[in-house]
C-alpha cells in the first residue's frame, strides 16, 4: 500500500505539450479512475507514474519518495496493459512468474506463488497454455495475474477492458473491484468509458486536454460537474445544453424564445451562459400542462427498461430519458417539465460551473 503524490507534472513531446501541470493526491489503498476522451493525456500520466515515460516537469512521489529518476522496476508498481502484452512465447505460468524469475526467486517458491495466483484467478487448468490459445477474458486474467504476483504497492491499469466484449467487460469489472477489495493496493485505472469509471472508482479524476477538470467521488462528479466538459462527458446520454443570456429578470434561452426565471443570479446582464439539464431529470407531461415546454419528438431509442426520446426544442436538440411506458410518435408534440434545482449553469466563456443558486453568491444589483 502506498500513497501517490503528483505535483505540477507536465509532459512534452518535442514541441507539443500533452499534460499541462497536474496536481493529484491518491490515498493509500484507494481505487482512483482517471477518465477522459482519447488524447487527453490520461494514459501518459499513468505511464509517467509507471516510469515508462519521462516526466518533463514536476514530481511524482510514491509513499513520499520522489520516483522521477527511478527505473520502472524500482517503483513497486505493476501494470495491466490495454492489449495485455503477454509474452507470446511463454506459457501462462511463465508469463505470470516472469517477474519472480527475474528477481531470482527459487523455483519451488515461484511455482507455489504461481499456483496461488492462478487459483485466485481460476487459471489453474490453463497454466501450460500459450497466450495464443486463450480467449480474451483469459488473457486479461493472465495479465492481472502477472501484476498480482509481485504484490505491488501500486496497481496501474491502462484501459484493460477495452478489448473485451460488452458482457465480459461487465464481468471483469466486478472481478477487478473484488480483487481490489481483497488486495487493497492503491489502484489507478485509466479509461475512456464513463460507465466503467463510475462503477469502479472510489474517486474519479476527469481529464481533458492535458488538464484535470474535476476530482471527486462518482456521485459528486455526476451531480455537481465542475465544468461544461465534465457535464457533457459524464452521463449517458449526455447532459442537454442550452445557450442562454442573462437578462434583468433571469436567463433568456434559445435566442429569447424561452425564459428562465432565476431568482438569485450573480451574473452581469448580457453574460452568456449555458444551462444544462440531465436527460434523466426531465419529466414528460401532456402538451399544454402549465409550466411545461412543448417540444417535437424526433426519434425514440428503446433501451428495454426505459427509452431515450430525442426531441426538437425550438430548433435545439434535446433528449429525455424516461422509464414510463409512453411511446410518443415521431413528429408529435410533447410537454417537458423539470425542477429548477436540477439545472446546471456554466459560463460560455470559461466553461466553468456557475453556482447561480448558491446562497453564498452575493446578490448584485442588476443594472440596465
Amino acid at each position, binding site marked *: 500500500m502506498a500513497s501517490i503524490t503528483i505535483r505540477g507534472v507536465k509532459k512534452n513531446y518535442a514541441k507539443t505539450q500533452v499534460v499541462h501541470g497536474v496536481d493529484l493526491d491518491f490515498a493509500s489503498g484507494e481505487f482512483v479512475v482517471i477518465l477522459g476522451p482519447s488524447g487527453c493525456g490520461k494514459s501518459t500520466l499513468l505511464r509517467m507514474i*509507471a*516510469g*515508462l515515460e519521462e516526466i518533463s516537469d514536476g514530481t511524482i512521489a510514491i509513499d513520499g519518495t520522489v520516483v522521477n529518476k527511478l*527505473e*520502472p*522496476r524500482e517503483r513497486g*508498481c*505493476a*501494470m495491466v*496493459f*490495454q*492489449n495485455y*502484452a*503477454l*509474452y*507470446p*512465447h511463454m506459457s501462462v505460468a511463465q508469463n505470470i512468474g*516472469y*517477474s519472480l524469475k*527475474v*528477481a531470482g526467486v527459487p523455483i519451488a517458491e515461484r511455482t507455489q506463488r504461481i499456483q496461488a495466483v492462478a487459483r485466485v484467478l481460476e487459471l489453474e487448468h490453463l497454466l501450460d497454455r500459450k497466450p*495464443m490459445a486463450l480467449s480474451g477474458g483469459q488473457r486479461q486474467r493472465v495479465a492481472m495475474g*502477472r501484476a498480482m504476483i*509481485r504484490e505491488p504497492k501500486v496497481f496501474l491499469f491502462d484501459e484493460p477492458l477495452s478489448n473485451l466484449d460488452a458482457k465480459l467487460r461487465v464481468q471483469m469489472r466486478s472481478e477487478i473491484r473484488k480483487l481490489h477489495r481483497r488486495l487493497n493496493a492503491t489502484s489507478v485505472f485509466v479509461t475512456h468509458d464513463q460507465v466503467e469509471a463510475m462503477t469502479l472508482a472510489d474517486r474519479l479524476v476527469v481529464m481533458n486536454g492535458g488538464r484535470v477538470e474535476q476530482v471527486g467521488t462518482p456521485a459528486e462528479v455526476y451531480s455537481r460537474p465542475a465544468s461544461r466538459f465534465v457535464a457533457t462527458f459524464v452521463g449517458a446520454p449526455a447532459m442537454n445544453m442550452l445557450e442562454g443570456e442573462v437578462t434583468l429578470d433571469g436567463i433568456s434561452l434559445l435566442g429569447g424564445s424561452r425564459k428562465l426565471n432565476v431568482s438569485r443570479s450573480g451574473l452581469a446582464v448580457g453574460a452568456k451562459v449555458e444551462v444544462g439539464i440531465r436527460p434523466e431529470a426531465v419529466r414528460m407531461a401532456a402538451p399544454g400542462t402549465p409550466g411545461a415546454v412543448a417540444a417535437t419528438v424526433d426519434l425514440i431509442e428503446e433501451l428495454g427498461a426505459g427509452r431515450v426520446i430525442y426531441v426538437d426544442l425550438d430548433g435545439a436538440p434535446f433528449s429525455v430519458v424516461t422509464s414510463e411506458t409512453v411511446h410518443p410518435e415521431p413528429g408529435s408534440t410533447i410537454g417537458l417539465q423539470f425542477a429548477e434545482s436540477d439545472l446546471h449553469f456554466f459560463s460560455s466563456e470559461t466553461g466553468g460551473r456557475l453556482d447561480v443558486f448558491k446562497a453564498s453568491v452575493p446578490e448584485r444589483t442588476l443594472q440596465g
Partner: protein
Amino acid sequence: MEKRVTFGRWTIGILFAVPQLLLIFTFFYWPAGQAVYWSLTLQQPWGGGNIWVGLDNFRSILSNADYWNSITASLVFAATSTGLAMVIALVLAALTDRQLAGSWLYRVVLIWPYGIAAPALAMAFRFILAPEAGFMAVVNKVWPGFWDPGLDGADAMASVIIAFSWKYVGYNFIFFLAAFQAIPRSLIEAAAMDGSGVIRRFRDIQFPLITPTIFFLLVINITESFQDSFGIVDIMTAGGPANATNLMVYKIYSDGFKGLDYSGAAAQSIILMLLIIALTIVQFRFIERRVHYR
C-alpha cells in the same frame, strides 16, 4: 472459410500458371538437368560430342585432395561470414531499435552495400585491405609481415570474409530491424515493469521473438555464402594463395572455364547443389524446432 477463386475449366488455371512454370523450367530445371547430364559424361573441350562415363567424374573429384580442401574452405567461409554478418547486424539493429531518431537514414544507407555488385565491392576491399598502402600498411609497419593476403592463406580468407560480411550486414540489418520493430512496444514495457533490465529483456523477450527472422537469415546467408562469394573471390584473390580461398563455387568456374574440364565442373556444381540442399534440410529439421512462430 478460405476464399478461393475457381475456374470453370481447368485449362484456364493452367494458362495462368504457364508463365511462371516456363520461367522456372527455362532457368532452373533445364540448366540443372543439363548439368546432371554433363556430370555423367565426358565433354570434349573443343566440341564434338560427349562420352557417357557414369559416375567417373564424381569418383575422380572426390578422390582429389584439392577438392576436399575446397569444401573445407567453403565451410569455414560460410560459417565465419554468416556468423559475422548476422551478429554485427543483430547488434546494430538492436541498438537502432532502442533509439529511433533518424532510423530511416540507417535503413537507406545500410541497404546500399547489398545493392553493390560483388566484383565492385571486392575491388574496393582489395584497395582497403592492400598490404602496401592504406590502413593495413600502417599495421604492417608496426608489425612487419603481419598482413599480406597475397602470401598468407589465412589473411586472404579473412579478406574475403570481411568483404562478404560487409555486404550482408546491411541486408541482415534491414530484416533484424523490421523484426525488432514488429515486437509490440508494450511487451518490452511489460518486461521492464516486471523488473527486467535491457540485457535481460533482449535475452528473454526480444531474441526469442525474432527467432523466425534469425532462422530465415541463417538459411539465406549460408546459401548465399556458397554462391554469391564468386565475384568477391575472383577479384580479390582468384582462389589463391595456394588454393586457400578456392571456394567450391570458384573452383567450378576455374576448373570448368580455365581448366576446360566441363564435365568435372558440372559434377562439382551437382555436389554443391546437393550440399546446399542438405544444409537447408538440416537447418529446417534441427534449428527450426527452436523457432517461436507467433
